[in-house]
């Protein structure tokens, strides 16, 4: 009985089902904690200019490498810039890139995956082999190759995320489409003369949305890490734009004398990654009817 209710939950868009879904999600304390983290960071990111006490690019040679204090919450860096303000603006950069990149991958990957899965046969083979080739490259190598072709910039990183994560969305979407294709309602849509794009995007996509949302949340976490990694390596966001990864690189030279320089940006990277991961896990559990009695 419980299983039946849960199954309906994953598919229906009914209000009461949405409420059930929300209730089930909210029971998962860890996921709620993650949601809280992400919402806080979202607010911070949106209102960074209002919250930040200093302009992130202004250098102050009277306050170089000062430790955390009431004046400079996270201390200052080697050019006297306020690290707290730079972290806030860093969030803006990293969130823009991740959001853009993951959305690009979602649109590309889902279209490819759903089409391949629904059409099957030759189309499926061609599309998924191309995706496999893309997946065979370690994403960092792929990123370095793309960026060396495009020149380092934050838009380059966005593009890298978009391309590197496409295969993941394509695979998830394909597996959903392959099973939904066999559903009777898809057959009866064909019988009614519905066009292929209508079937794929209006009927298969909404039914596959659960696993895709889980993938989006998890990829957000990876996206933040990859963006930070590329900036750490110096091929991502370019100065003077504030970037969390770049602050880590610069700070590591001062680790012995000014721990705050890299510790705070490091924590700043960690928090949203934990947040997205716990939300993703929570959503996956909620979408999965088998785990109802967890």
């Amino acid at each position, binding site marked *: 009985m419980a299983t039946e209710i849960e199954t*309906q939950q994953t*598919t*229906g*868009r*009914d209000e009461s089902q949405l409420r059930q879904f929300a209730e089930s999600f909210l029971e998962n304390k860890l996921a709620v904690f993650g949601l809280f983290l992400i919402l806080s960071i979202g607010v911070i990111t949106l209102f960074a200019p209002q919250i930040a006490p200093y302009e992130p690019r202004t250098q102050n040679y009277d306050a170089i490498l000062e430790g955390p204090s009431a004046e400079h919450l996270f201390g200052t860096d080697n050019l006297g810039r306020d690290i707290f303000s730079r972290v806030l603006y860093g969030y803006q950069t990293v969130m823009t890139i991740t959001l853009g990149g993951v959305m690009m991958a979602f649109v590309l990957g889902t279209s490819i995956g759903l089409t391949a899965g629904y059409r*099957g*046969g030759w189309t499926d083979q061609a599309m998924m082999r191309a995706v496999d080739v893309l997946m065979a490259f370690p994403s960092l190598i792929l990123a370095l190759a793309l960026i060396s072709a495009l020149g380092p910039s934050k838009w380059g990183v966005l593009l890298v995320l978009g391309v590197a994560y496409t295969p993941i969305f394509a695979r998830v979407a394909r597996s959903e489409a392959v099973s939904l294709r066999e*559903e*009777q*309602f898809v*057959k*009866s*849509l*064909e*019988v*009614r*003369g*519905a*066009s292929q794009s209508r079937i794929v995007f209006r*009927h298969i996509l*909404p*039914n596959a949305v659960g696993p895709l949302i889980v993938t989006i949340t998890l990829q957000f976490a990876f996206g933040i890490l990859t963006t930070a990694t590329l900036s750490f390596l110096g091929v991502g966001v370019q100065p003077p734009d504030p970037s969390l990864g770049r602050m880590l690189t610069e700070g590591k030279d001062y680790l012995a004398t000014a721990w705050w320089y890299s510790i705070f940006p490091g924590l700043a990277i960690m928090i949203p990654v934990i947040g997205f991961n716990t939300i993703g896990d929570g959503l996956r559990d909620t979408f999965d009817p088998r785990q109802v009695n967890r």
Partner: protein
Amino acid sequence: MTSPRLSVRDLQVTYTTKHDEVNAVDRVSFDVQNDEIFGIVGESGCGKSTLASTILRLLDDNGEITGGEIRYGDWDLAAMSEGELAKQIRGREISMVFQDPNTSLDPVYTIGRQLIETIRQHLDVSKQEARKRAIQSLADVGIPSPEDRLDDYPHQFSGGMRQRVVIAIALSCDPGLLIADEPTTGLDVSIQAQILDLLEDINANHDTSIILITHDLGVVAEVCDRVGVMYAGNLVEVSPVDVVYDDPKHPYTEDLLRSIPETHEMKSELTVIKGTPPDLREPPSGCRYHPRCTKVCSDACETGDIPQEYREDGSVVRCYLYDPAENPEYEGSAKVDEGQRDGQLESPERGDQL
């Protein structure tokens, strides 16, 4: 006589697997008249569902029409382009209802949206107009307070109601032909009867012919006007429904009827047809039923290429029993005298009475 609604001629469907070719439908011909309910019966795997999906060209990728034609109006469905089919035929002129109503509807949309989607796809009408039509369709299939139920999701309907909704969608564009593939199989008996009544009702009140595919001879007896009996990809007999039950022509039909358990007889054993249906990868030569047939009348049964053309009081039979050249005991002809034939067949019974 007016031309039939649907006319299938020498239809041949072949599935290609890695190693074999399977002739799932072999030279099948039949007509569906205007406003008639035409039943297709047969065991599992005899090709009846393949036949149904072939009419709308919904075969799986490895299936292919390898011969014959499917005439509907001025169209040959076997030769039409996919695009034309989707635009002119599917859902518009011919619709189909499947076995399981529980999965025939998209769970994420209200039934109203699904109805309106189909209507707007085929008819050039406004949203309001489509909504009105949708309500009308639901009312036609006997759904109470259709205005309110339009905004309900499929899971809020019971199985029988869901099948009604599926039928409403199928009928929403006033199709000329409705193909119902085992429409009552997933439902319990009382609901089955309701759905069959509904089909009869639709057939009577709309200009819609129905092809009813089933393995249930009881269902056929209840609603069909004429019946096609399939065996191993062949249509072995097409007869008016009373002929099938009272005086089946093909030995297979006869055996099939005999295997229905009768409730008033206490028998320790069920009557079964000996043997198993043939493997269609290597169908028997000649008549595909001859290895199980109790009435083999000629060597030609085992070797001949039997045409589906022997006519016998309103029936078309694919059997040499009705060919004077092959069956010396056959005394009738293509146009047999009613009285003479009846006398011949019923004489043993009369003998009993004496």
